[in-house]
């Protein structure tokens, strides 16, 4: 009688601990469960709470110094600090469990969780090996994610911190300057006393210095880079406005002719910085940070001398002999040394059928080994492998896209127009009335700031992207949203995109199985490691109490064993399309596996058909054509047996005439994702992986694609409307200013007022559109 552990689900063979009528296979599991039970926030007795405890992995690779050093951030004589990324963190209860780990493992002194980053920092006793720590984390359900290559964006971090500081200082100065400008605006007795007036003006000058010298630095940098590289950078007119306003204000104070516009000046800087900071608030950039290296094992069993040792992947060289175990991914191009192997190339080509290869055949990086342990001689290391080269063609120049965007084009022309008009008015008025001329110039430049135009786009797309990210739709940047609104065609990949590789439909044809045979079969399936067995297992409940004996598994051929006296055999069918089941030597039937088509896809495609061209680009054979023809509306193009390069070429050809989106699962269609105007990567599992995609969408939301495109279009309309609004402000203000009659005071007030209304309008309109289009009734929840 093998009881199953309540915590990890394994059989309790070595020892069995009973607590409150539940069985545990070891003390570790028991302690972990008790700790989790203490965290009241998640429902621990809920059957749906299955933290995927993996007790089998031993994390030995973390003990290799070069790999351990990736995670150790500080070390001294007594303690070491490590940082792990845990993708399973999702609620406050997770934080509780992790921060109380020190209760069940004394070598862990302290744990601090960073919820937004999904990472932890642990203070450990110096002597404890990292593999033990990782095992402990896995035991409570939060296995560390060590395959992810850290995206070191130190540069962007520094820029972000600087901008925040500049923002804070600008805000401080702005608020105080406004306070000290009150006497100017109000008719107070104070105004008659020149020493007071002078005092307040001096304070304003002093307070505006940090804004001029520190907070505006990033605008100066932008304008300078524009001048250096000979193009009209969007910050250039802004810098001109700022310098004009500031120098005019200083001049007025020094010559005692006025009080300047320090409040509007610092206000402009403050609001612009807020807009830029808002753009920085990108939620969850983790999805875009992973590189393809995270799919490969980090250590490879390599022959050194006469023995096989675990070597970090980066140190594997040409001509090394490596051993790849069952279900591991081959990390390099090479030649097969073992007699035969069964390989799954879905990663590389998208084909769902496995390939049987013999000794001497060329094998490629990215193939998953579905046989037992095989030996390979390395010919090309990962970076130079066929797959590595394909993936490394990712160099995309995104700065160019930004420069060509609509906003920048409009702002550029507007600026030129503005400069012309302002300086024109200045020179016209100067001969007759110098004072009025100056007034016209400065108020024109203050009032008609192109920054309102920029803010429209920034705030709209910034808000939109954040709302979308909350619904788990990740956009790479705001220009993707614009492009999404102007598409003309959608091309889909098949396996993993249109079909869901996590939902397998198992169909059985043959003689029906007796109830006792059904119950016993589950034991055999559970013991087998083959993915096919795992899929079939879903339909066969495991009974507690069945014992499996004489179990043998021949990877690539099948499995067999005796359960409760019945002898089962699972063998690959002779026509290789299914798996046969033999009971007690007699053939009983065959299992056929098919990936399910995602639900809602048919309706979605019908919706898209009215406005877009549709097509399917698949790497698989056309065996599935019938199902696909029923799914796609009449007139769609369905092409099969395409290699990743053929897909990329196909899309790039399409792009010559129509703007396409390509939707794939990102594994083998990097090229196509890059070539398309918009590359959308679909993913189901936690691991999100986008070498070249612009949008990441979870599998179950693919059917909402039409709504998402509708939202992108709505956002585009909102940007235009707010452009119109800010142009209105500008036209009215500008025409008045150019006559020289606009009081600088009014100009100074109009500036923040217009900025504020733009921000308010765009944020509310965007949010509104989101709830109208993407949240109604049965659509996505927030």
């Amino acid at each position, binding site marked *: 009688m093998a009881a199953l552990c309540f915590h990890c689900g394994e059989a*309790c*063979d*070595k*020892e*069995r*601990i*009973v*607590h*409150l009528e539940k069985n545990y296979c070891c003390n570790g599991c*028991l302690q972990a469960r*008790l*700790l989790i039970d*203490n*965290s*009241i*926030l998640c429902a621990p007795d809920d059957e749906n709470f299955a933290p995927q405890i993996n007790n089998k992995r031993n994390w030995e690779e973390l003990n290799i110094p070069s790999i351990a050093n990736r995670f150790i951030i500080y070390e001294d004589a007594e303690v070491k600090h490590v940082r792990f990324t845990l993708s399973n963190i999702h609620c*406050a209860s997770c*934080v*509780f469990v992790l*921060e109380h780990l020190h209760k069940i493992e004394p070598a862990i002194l302290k744990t*601090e*969780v*960073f*919820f*937004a*980053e999904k990472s932890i920092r642990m203070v450990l006793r110096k002597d404890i090996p990292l593999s033990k720590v990782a095992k402990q984390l896995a035991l409570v359900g939060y296995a560390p994610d060590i395959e992810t290559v850290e995206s070191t964006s130190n540069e962007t971090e520094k820029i972000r*911190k600087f901008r*925040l*500081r500049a923002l*804070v*200082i600008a805000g*401080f100065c702005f608020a*105080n300057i406004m306070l*000290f400008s009150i006497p100017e605006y109000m008719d107070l*007795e*104070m105004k008659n*006393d020149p020493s*007071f007036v002078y*005092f307040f003006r001096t*304070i304003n000058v002093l307070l505006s210095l940090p804004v001029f010298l520190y907070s505006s630095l990033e605008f100066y940098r932008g304008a300078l880079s524009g001048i250096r590289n000979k193009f009209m950078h969007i910050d250039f007119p802004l810098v001109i406005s700022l310098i004009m306003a500031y120098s005019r204000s200083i001049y007025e104070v020094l010559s005692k002719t006025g009080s300047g516009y320090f409040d509007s000046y610092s206000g402009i800087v403050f609001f612009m910085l807020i807009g830029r900071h808002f753009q920085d608030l990108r939620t969850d950039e983790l999805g875009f940070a992973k590189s393809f290296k995270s799919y490969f094992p980090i250590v490879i069993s390599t022959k050194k001398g006469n023995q096989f040792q675990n070597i970090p992947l980066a140190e594997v060289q040409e001509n090394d002999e490596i051993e790849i175990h069952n279900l591991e991914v081959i990390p390099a191009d090479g030649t097969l040394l073992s007699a035969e192997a069964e390989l799954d190339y879905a990663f590389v080509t998208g084909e769902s059928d496995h390939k049987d290869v013999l000794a001497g055949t060329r094998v490629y990086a990215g193939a998953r080994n579905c046989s037992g342990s095989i030996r390979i001689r390395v010919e090309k290391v990962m970076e130079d492998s066929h797959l590595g080269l394909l993936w490394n063609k990712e160099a995309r120049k995104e700065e160019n896209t930004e420069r060509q965007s609509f906003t920048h084009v409009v702002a550029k022309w507007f600026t030129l127009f503005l400069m012309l008009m302002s300086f024109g008015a200045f020179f016209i008025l100067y001969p007759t009335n110098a004072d009025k001329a100056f007034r016209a110039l400065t108020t024109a430049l203050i009032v008609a700031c192109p920054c309102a135009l920029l803010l429209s786009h920034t705030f709209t797309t910034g808000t939109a992207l954040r709302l979308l990210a909350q619904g788990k739709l990740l956009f790479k940047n705001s220009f993707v949203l614009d492009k999404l609104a102007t598409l003309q065609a959608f091309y889909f990949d098949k396996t993993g995109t249109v079909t869901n590789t996590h939902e397998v439909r198992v169909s059985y044809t043959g003689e029906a199985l007796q109830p006792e045979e059904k119950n016993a079969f589950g034991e055999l399936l559970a013991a087998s490691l083959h993915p096919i067995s795992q899929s079939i297992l879903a339909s066969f409940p495991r009974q507690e109490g069945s014992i499996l004996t004489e179990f043998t598994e021949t990877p690539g051929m099948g499995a067999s064993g005796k359960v409760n006296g019945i002898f089962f055999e699972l063998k690959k069918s002779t026509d290789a399309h299914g798996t046969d089941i033999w009971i007690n030597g007699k053939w009983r039937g065959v299992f056929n596996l098919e990936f399910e088509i995602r639900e809602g896809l048919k309706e979605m495609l019908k919706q898209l058909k009215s406005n877009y061209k549709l097509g399917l680009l698949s790497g698989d054979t056309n065996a599935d054509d019938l199902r696909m023809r029923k799914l796609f509306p009449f007139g769609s193009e369905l092409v099969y047996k395409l290699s990743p390069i053929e897909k990329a070429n196909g899309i790039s050809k399409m792009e010559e005439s129509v703007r396409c989106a390509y939707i794939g699962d990102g594994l083998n269609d990097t090229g196509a994702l890059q070539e398309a105007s918009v590359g959308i990567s679909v993913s189901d599992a936690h691991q999100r992986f986008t070498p070249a995609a612009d949008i990441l969408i979870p599998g179950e939301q693919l059917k909402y694609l039409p709504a998402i495109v509708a939202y992108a279009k709505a956002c585009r309309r909102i940007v235009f409307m707010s452009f119109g609004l800010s142009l209105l402000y500008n036209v009215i203000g500008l025409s008045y200013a150019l006559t020289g009659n606009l009081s600088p005071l009014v100009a100074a007030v109009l500036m923040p007022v217009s900025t504020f209304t733009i921000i308010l309008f765009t944020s509310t309109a965007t949010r509104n559109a989101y709830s109208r289009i993407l949240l109604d009734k049965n659509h996505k929840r927030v």
Partner: protein
Amino acid sequence: MSVIYLLIGISLPLAMVFLIVFLRNAKRGQFDDLDTPAMRILFEEKPITQTEIKTEEQPK
């Protein structure tokens, strides 16, 4: 009204002290994580019950 010189002379430096304190602490990382401290206040410490833990050695 000249008391205003004194008032401003005190309040402005005071405000600047706050600004400096904020900038210093932002540099030290106090504001890097704003979500997790909010969760920590919800934790309770229940004693782990040690009753009824029986261990058996399973025959191989």
